[in-house]
């Protein structure tokens, strides 16, 4: 049996387990449910667990190791001259063999490869056979054992409860391990990069030109991996974005929370939040096709030298994108300020704007700052807009009218197209990713800590 069929079989067996478990429990007490410790369905789930869990585990483990084991067996049987000694060569061989099996092989002319492919196919069939046998045996064993366990006094409900908990833990573990895995892979690749390019060159170098020459005698034969222009570019654009987003977001939040009538509020708040739902690529071409040319023309009419892809254009549009982050969170926090504080200020004769400026904003400030930090980390990580509107030239400049590039843009350009996976150019992307990750992580942690502290204060 192949694997999809096997999975289906497991599901069928598990369902059967449920049915027989339930039936068994009812049989034991000859239909008098009150005498059972748990409801009959729990005995069903219990038996289903005994059938389903071990077989599924076996299937997963088999899937995990089958490829590697089979490949090793096949390679070991190849004639000596093909085997070579490096791991890379073995991987290439396996690829060739698999391709041949699929009938689309490039090296199908080689008879020994052809033989190996046949061998592989044979082994695969044996493996599938073994697996089917194992699954059926395990299902039978588990079913028999579980079935025997079912008694009047058996606490099936508690066991099912435990099983559910283990399952939930497993799910969350997968999420956590995925994160850990991503972080680790980024770290490992970065370490490889830092073996080729010193950390200090990367972090403090002022020149970014990641093109590696193909031949040693070419001009600019070695790339430069000084990331400072990228950091400053990112900071410049994020700064422009925050200059746009913080005042507008904060003011609109104040208007919505303090001045707007409930009717206006119910309409305006969702409208504002729609801004957050616009796909960033839409913002991107808006920035590249509308805002950037407009700024260039405006600059020309003022006699300024504006490049057609400017930090200003990208920053402005990114700022618009971030407005709802700032306004929505600020609005929540302004609303969370207790009415009693407003009453206190009004009762002293403060006007509404005095109350807002002197009492409400200070009270909501930690939350607002947290919201702004979240928005900053969003701005730093934003890719699409800057890819489309900010340009690719790594200028070390603070001039918002010049073209700059950002960390995310460079990651994209480094990885687009044909790549060698061990060239510094490709690995540099991971190093940049690591820096980006660390910065946004720190910003997020800081923001969450501030927000949480503030929440405790008023709840």
């Amino acid at each position, binding site marked *: 049996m192949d694997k999809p069929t096997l999975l289906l079989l497991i599901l069928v067996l598990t369902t059967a387990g449920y049915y027989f478990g339930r039936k068994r429990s009812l049989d034991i007490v000859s239909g008098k449910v009150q005498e059972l410790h748990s409801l009959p369905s729990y005995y069903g789930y219990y038996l289903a667990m005994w059938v389903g869990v071990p077989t599924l585990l076996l299937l997963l483990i088999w899937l995990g190791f089958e490829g590697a084991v089979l490949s090793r067996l096949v390679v070991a049987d190849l004639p000596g001259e093909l085997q070579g000694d490096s791991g890379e060569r073995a991987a290439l061989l396996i690829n060739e063999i698999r391709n041949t099996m699929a009938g689309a092989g490039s090296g199908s002319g080689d008879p020994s490869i052809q033989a190996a492919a046949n061998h592989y196919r044979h082994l695969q069939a044996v493996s599938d056979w073994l697996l089917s046998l194992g699954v059926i045996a395990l299902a039978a064993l588990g079913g028999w054992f579980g079935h025997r366990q079912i008694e009047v006094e058996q606490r099936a409900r508690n066991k099912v409860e435990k099983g559910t908990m283990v399952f939930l833990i497993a799910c969350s573990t997968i999420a956590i391990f995925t994160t850990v895995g991503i972080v680790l892979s980024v770290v490992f690749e970065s370490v490889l990069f830092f073996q080729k390019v010193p950390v200090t060159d990367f972090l403090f170098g002022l020149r970014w030109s990641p093109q590696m020459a193909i031949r040693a005698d070419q001009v600019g034969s070695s790339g430069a991996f000084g990331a400072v222009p990228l950091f400053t570019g990112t900071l410049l654009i994020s700064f422009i974005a925050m200059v746009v987003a913080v005042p507008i977001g904060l003011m609109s939040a104040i208007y919505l929370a303090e001045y707007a*009538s*409930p009717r206006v509020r119910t309409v305006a708040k969702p409208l504002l939040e729609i801004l957050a739902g616009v796909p960033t690529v839409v913002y991107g071409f808006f920035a590249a096709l509308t805002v950037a040319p407009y700024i260039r023309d405006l600059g020309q009419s003022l006699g300024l030298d504006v490049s057609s892809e400017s930090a200003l254009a990208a920053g402005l549009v990114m700022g618009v994108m971030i407005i709802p982050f700032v306004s929505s969170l600020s609005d929540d926090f302004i609303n969370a300020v*207790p009415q*009693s*504080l*407003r*009453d*206190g*200020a*009004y*009762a*002293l*004769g*403060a*006007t509404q704007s*005095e109350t807002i400026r*002197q*009492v409400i904003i*200070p*009270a909501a400030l930690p939350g607002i700052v947290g919201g702004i930090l979240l928005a900053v980390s969003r701005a730093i990580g934003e890719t699409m807009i800057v890819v489309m509107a900010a340009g690719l030239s790594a200028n070390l400049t603070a001039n918002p009218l010049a073209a700059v590039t950002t960390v995310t843009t460079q990651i994209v350009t480094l990885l687009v197209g044909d790549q060698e996976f061990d060239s510094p150019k490709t690995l540099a992307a991971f190093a940049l990713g690591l820096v980006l990750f660390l910065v946004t992580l720190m910003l997020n942690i800081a923001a969450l800590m501030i927000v949480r502290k503030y929440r405790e204060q008023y709840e």
Partner: protein
Amino acid sequence: MNSLLELKTAMRDERTEVKPAKRLGTNVSFDRDYGDTVGEVTASNARMVCRDVNVFYGPKQAIHGVNLDIGRNEVIALIGPSGCGKSTFIRCLNRMNDTIVGCRVTGSIQLDGQDIYDPQMDVVPLRAQIGMVFQKPNPFPKSIYENVAYGPRIHGLTQNKAELEEVVENSLRRAGLWDEVKDSLDQPGTSLSGGQQQRLCIARTIAVNPEVILMDEPCSALDPIATARIEQLIDELRMQFTIAIVTHSMQQAARVSQRTAYFHLGKLIEVGETAQVFTNPRHQLTEDYITGRFG
């Protein structure tokens, strides 16, 4: 003051069989019509004069035709069952109801002869004249010093820093808090205990030198000792201010007030000298409330 309640209870027992007409009014002169309210609505030296005050929350009427004077240097207690409109009424007196959407006030309320609901009236100085202390202490998230200095600052009451410091110290002294906080004026106001916070709020209110102080259940969040402290404070403040206090504790009303007004379902049922209202209520509803038959 317990003796007062005992006295009242004893009197109730005496009077149970003879149930006189609900509205005695034997020694009350009604030269004008003040609705159904029993007792002396007017005060000889009135600071605030409320006539035919109605309050609506949207279509719902919460206060029905209340007439009441609040006299100079007196403490008037507003009592009544929950939801009868005490808070609503007291918030009318400094136009705090303006901040509630859909709340409408009709009738006239005068402070020293001036209608506070006059469209010409500026609520900012008005609220400086009529201060308010709330049920839950609500110090601003600022330092103790800044909490008290806030009012004088926004009203520009002081010329320089030294004067402001003097006002802050004076207010804290009068609120009986100075000795406890004089070494920690830069600590946040929210770090004080509940009773201290409430006294801080009182200090904040008297720092702008109001003429009338409204208090809406100022002790309901406090323990008996803090309550006693604030009651003593109210008694002292009476010398300088006119005070209206909402309370659920009849003992407290009896201890701090000179006059008592009993509200029921948005109507002012009875007003009178505190001792008289508690020992000899004239209206059946007042009597029922005071003797604990409902509310």
